């Protein structure tokens, strides 16, 4: 009985198990425990949440292995970590640490402005950001086993996440409406491989799980993303940059499960204290927009 690791089914299947859940950014073991206790399906271990990366500037890199391992030791749920776009050595390091998923993330400073990591070459699965369908399919073509819409991380402004979810959903719906002989040009326009374009046209969905990320700060934000067709939600700065992280984390988990029940969302939204202050994406000068990283 040969046991095979790192297959597409095992990598994509791992993301299927996270569906309907919330993945939370944490910077230490204490936050990781708060996230686990609140019902997070996984945590993303990183040294600085996007809001701090934005505030402090400088080059943002993979986190310290010590810090990642402390978080792995503290919780029993999956632990994800971020590598810079194109930095396949950071990815190898994270794989050797036994992280459960790698986020090849635009939140960190890219290491390669042309190529992303060849993700088929790894046993550990990857999640990648996308702002539109073509970008999502290019990442899947490189081996991504999960996609998240990018949004604009570290802002608490959900408008970009909304825009990206609408864009991806709209482009999928358009493909489904095309004649088969029109898919060749559609693939050219999307700058995506024809086979993946055809698969999406036939199934009406991405071939991998689609989460959403970037700017989600409240239970209602999380529910909004679920009602736009997200399979689940990443919450970065929104939780631990707020007044009462434990309660806000639990509230976002509830609203993600009962996204279609306004009464539950109302209850979850009561008395949460201050949300993260946030920055309007429109006020961000273009060079500081993270969602534009990746291509």
């Amino acid at each position, binding site marked *: 009985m040969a*046991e095979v690791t790192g297959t597409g089914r*095992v990598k994509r299947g791992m993301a299927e198990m996270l*569906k309907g859940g919330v993945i939370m950014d944490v910077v230490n073991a204490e936050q990781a425990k708060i996230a686990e206790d609140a*019902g997070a399906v996984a945590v993303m271990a990183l040294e600085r949440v996007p809001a701090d990366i934005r505030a402090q500037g400088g080059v943002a890199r993979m986190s310290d292995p010590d810090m990642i391992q402390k978080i792995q030791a503290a919780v029993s749920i999956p632990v994800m970590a971020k590598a810079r776009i194109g930095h396949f050595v950071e990815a190898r390091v994270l794989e050797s640490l036994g*992280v459960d998923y790698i986020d090849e993330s635009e939140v960190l400073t890219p290491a390669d402005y042309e190529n992303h990591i060849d993700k088929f070459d790894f046993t550990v699965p990857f999640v990648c950001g996308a702002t539109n369908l073509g970008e999502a399919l290019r990442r899947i073509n490189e081996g991504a086993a999960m996609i998240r819409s990018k949004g604009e991380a570290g802002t608490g402004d959900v408008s970009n996440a909304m825009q990206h979810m609408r864009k991806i959903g709209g482009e999928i719906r358009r493909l489904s409406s095309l004649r088969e002989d029109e898919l060749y040009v559609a693939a050219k326009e999307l700058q995506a491989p024809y086979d993946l374009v055809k698969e999406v046209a036939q199934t009406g969905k991405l071939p991998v799980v689609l989460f959403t990320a970037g700017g989600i700060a409240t239970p209602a934000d999380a529910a909004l993303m679920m009602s736009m067709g997200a399979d689940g939600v990443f919450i970065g700065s929104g939780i631990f940059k707020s007044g009462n992280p434990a309660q806000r984390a*639990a509230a976002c988990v509830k609203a993600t*499960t009962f996204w279609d029940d306004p009464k539950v969302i109302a209850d979850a939204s009561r008395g949460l204290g201050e949300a993260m202050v946030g920055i309007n994406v429109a006020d961000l000068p273009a060079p500081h927009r993270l969602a534009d990283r990746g291509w």
Partner: protein
Amino acid sequence: MKVGVLALQGDVREHISSLIACGVDAVPVRRESEIQSIDALVLPGGESTTIAQLSEVFGIYDLLKQRIASGMPVYGSCAGMILLATEILDAKVGQKSFGGLDISVRRNAFGRQVDSFESDIEFADGSHELIRAVFIRAPWVEKVGDAVQVLASIDSHPVAVRSHTALATSFHPELTGDHRIHRYFIEHVARPALEKVK
């Protein structure tokens, strides 16, 4: 037969598709009234800590525990197996299960995601045909009670077990498009159990 899939978190959709392919009425269930209306239950793959916690938060933990204890047929895959176990090893502090199946289960026993694997296994349904099994951060069974039968093992660790009313697998048949495990649950666990009640 109406089968509910507990829809708090996890791969609910895949279980529903597999059940429908087996010819039963399958619905997601999250609320008390929905749980009251079903004949049998599937606990999906997902994060066992999250599912257990949400069931408490939304006030359906006791109902699920009680319906399972009173013999509602139930199948759990991976996280679902953990949720059915009477004892969880390597649990999160205070982690609860619904119980119903007299087994001790070790969480993440096969390791982290880099150790997740697929393999052909023999499932003791009498067919002697191999089943492609997908294990994702999977648990295994360390101890079974007297009324529990082992249906499949990997390296002597049980990965599929059943009692009169409950079936549990460490792996995810819902991910492969092979409906034999679901059919086994319907035909050899749920239907006989429900007929006995009648």
